[in-house]
């Protein structure tokens, strides 16, 4: 068996192979059964659910005002009365800011992947299904983006466009379109070569039906699994851009930005200064484990 050269994507080289036909209803049932029997994935899912739910319902949780500053009670240590996790460099309640921070941090991590999934998968499936010149045109343009290390591309783009949440979202979406597109293209090209596509065409199915039923049904699983593995990268990258001052602007609570502004406090209250990073770490590790569990449950070869 010849060893294939791996496809080159962000992070690890993940070549996605297509499993057996997945349109049957029993497939998703067995996937969810396998997921429910996987304790690691379950626990990660619950932790993520907690973080997301608390971020979404933050205004109604009776938390302290995350914007209210105070010059007197700056950098209170963790466990101070009334301030469970202390206060930051401007005297704002850390616990409240960490919870509120989830809103922007998660949004900035998940949104670009969702947008890139929509655009990249459309482009990739089109390229894979049409083949020929269309494939050439789309994939060669993607090659240009592949000539940049992903972090460099994100930073140069958002650096040129200027700081701000919208520009970060745009830059990250652009960064994640090529890898999604490349995975979609290779999976679709594989599926297109299968006999059942030929059989469907022979029995008179139109292009649209073939794409909708036979291609999408077989291709969406692997693409989706790949996209979930990008979320943790996206969350770290988005936080990194904010950390550099290129993302969200102060005084918004956002984990990367908080890590940046708290850097001046590492000599005064080091544990406090590291807290926002813990949140980023927990979220990204949970997304990674979830993505691994999903891949195993959906039987997608990594």
């Amino acid at each position, binding site marked *: 068996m010849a060893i294939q050269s791996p496809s080159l994507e962000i992070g690890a080289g993940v070549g996605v192979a297509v499993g057996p036909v997945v349109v049957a209803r029993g497939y998703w049932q067995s996937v969810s059964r396998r997921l429910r029997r996987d304790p690691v994935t379950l626990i990660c899912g619950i932790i993520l659910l907690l973080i997301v739910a608390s971020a979404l319902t933050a205004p109604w949780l009776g938390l302290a005002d995350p914007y209210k500053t105070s010059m007197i009670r700056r950098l209170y240590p963790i466990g101070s009365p009334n301030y469970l996790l202390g206060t930051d460099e401007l005297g704002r309640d850390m616990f409240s800011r960490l919870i509120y921070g989830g809103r922007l941090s998660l949004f900035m991590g998940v949104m670009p992947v969702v947008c890139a999934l929509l655009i990249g998968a459309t482009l990739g499936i089109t390229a894979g299904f049409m083949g020929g010149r269309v494939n050439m045109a789309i994939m060669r343009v993607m090659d240009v983006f592949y000539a940049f290390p992903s972090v460099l591309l994100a930073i140069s783009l958002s650096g040129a*466009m200027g700081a701000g949440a919208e520009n970060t979202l745009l830059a990250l979406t652009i960064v994640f379109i090529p890898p999604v597109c490349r995975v979609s293209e290779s999976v679709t090209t594989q599926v297109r070569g299968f006999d059942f596509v030929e059989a469907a065409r022979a029995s008179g199915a139109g292009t649209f039906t073939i794409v909708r039923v036979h291609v999408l049904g077989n291709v969406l699983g692997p693409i989706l699994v790949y996209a979930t593995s990008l979320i943790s990268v996206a969350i770290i990258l988005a936080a990194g851009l904010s950390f550099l001052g290129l993302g969200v602007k102060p005084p918004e609570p956002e984990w990367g930005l908080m890590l940046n502004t708290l850097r001046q406090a590492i000599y005064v209250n080091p544990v406090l200064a590291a807290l926002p990073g813990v949140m*980023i770490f927990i979220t990204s590790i949970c997304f990674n484990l979830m993505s691994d569990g999903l891949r195993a449950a959906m039987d997608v070869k990594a």
Partner: protein
Amino acid sequence: MLLYALRRLIYLVPVAFGVSLLVFALVHLAPGDPISAIVPPDTPKEVIDKLKEYYGFDKPLPVQYVRWLLVTLSGDFGTSIGTGRPVAQEVGSAFGNTLILAISACLLAFTLAIVLGTTAAYAKSRAVDRLVTSIALFGVSVPHFWLAIVLVIIFSVELGMLPPMGIGPENATSWRLDWPHIRHMILPTIALSVIPLGVMTRTVRSTIKEILSMEFVTALQAKGMNDRQILLHVLKNAAPVCLAVMGLQAGNLIGGSILIETVFSWPGTGFLLNSAIFRRDLPILQGTTLVLAFFFMMLNLTVDVIQTFVDPRIKRA
């Protein structure tokens, strides 16, 4: 193989063209024009126009692009708007510093990853495999700039063992091979190596596991080879895949070191890029991005060519 290398090089030309177009476009993504962004707001209009003419910003875009491309191809990356020094000079000295850090991080990450990954693939006990997979998971999940801060907190602030920033003692701007300079490298190297460590460990482990389950390994065992001899065969078969990922990781390390360089004030390309962004020094932004992208392309090309050399079975179209 030479023919293949040549063909790949020719194929790189349109990609390089696209890259140059994208880098050129960077300047025009910026809000406002590049000159007004950096001069004081009360600058008279004549002065602004003079500056625009000097830097060539008054011409139509296609003309600007062709002019920029020709000048860049001749090795002149323009002058930094911020410092007035040639961009090539600034990027050149910064690139050397980045390269040193990247090489030491690669050495650390790849050696550890090969040892850990192979151990995990061979491990009979689940505990060893679990431990290695956890290390790999840590590597790919940890925000490395946060790890950098944590390292500074532990080893500089609390223990006072290692310097928290700079490339060397007394505001040094370049690297030398001596103990004080190496001390400055330790923390950034560790922080930079976690991502490639995680990714590579995963790759090495899964690749070797897959190879171990192949029939030729059983055949070698049946022939009576000992484990060490078989390991050589396995490693040789794992090399192409691992090399490809290594090349990609090394490239990402050089292009992605900006966050770590910022935390440690390491005077490399990332640090330069970061300060250029905040001074709105677009020629430096362009120059650095272009140099890093070309280095990345060349690195990938080299890895591809080496791959066919290591494994002649790989047939390239």
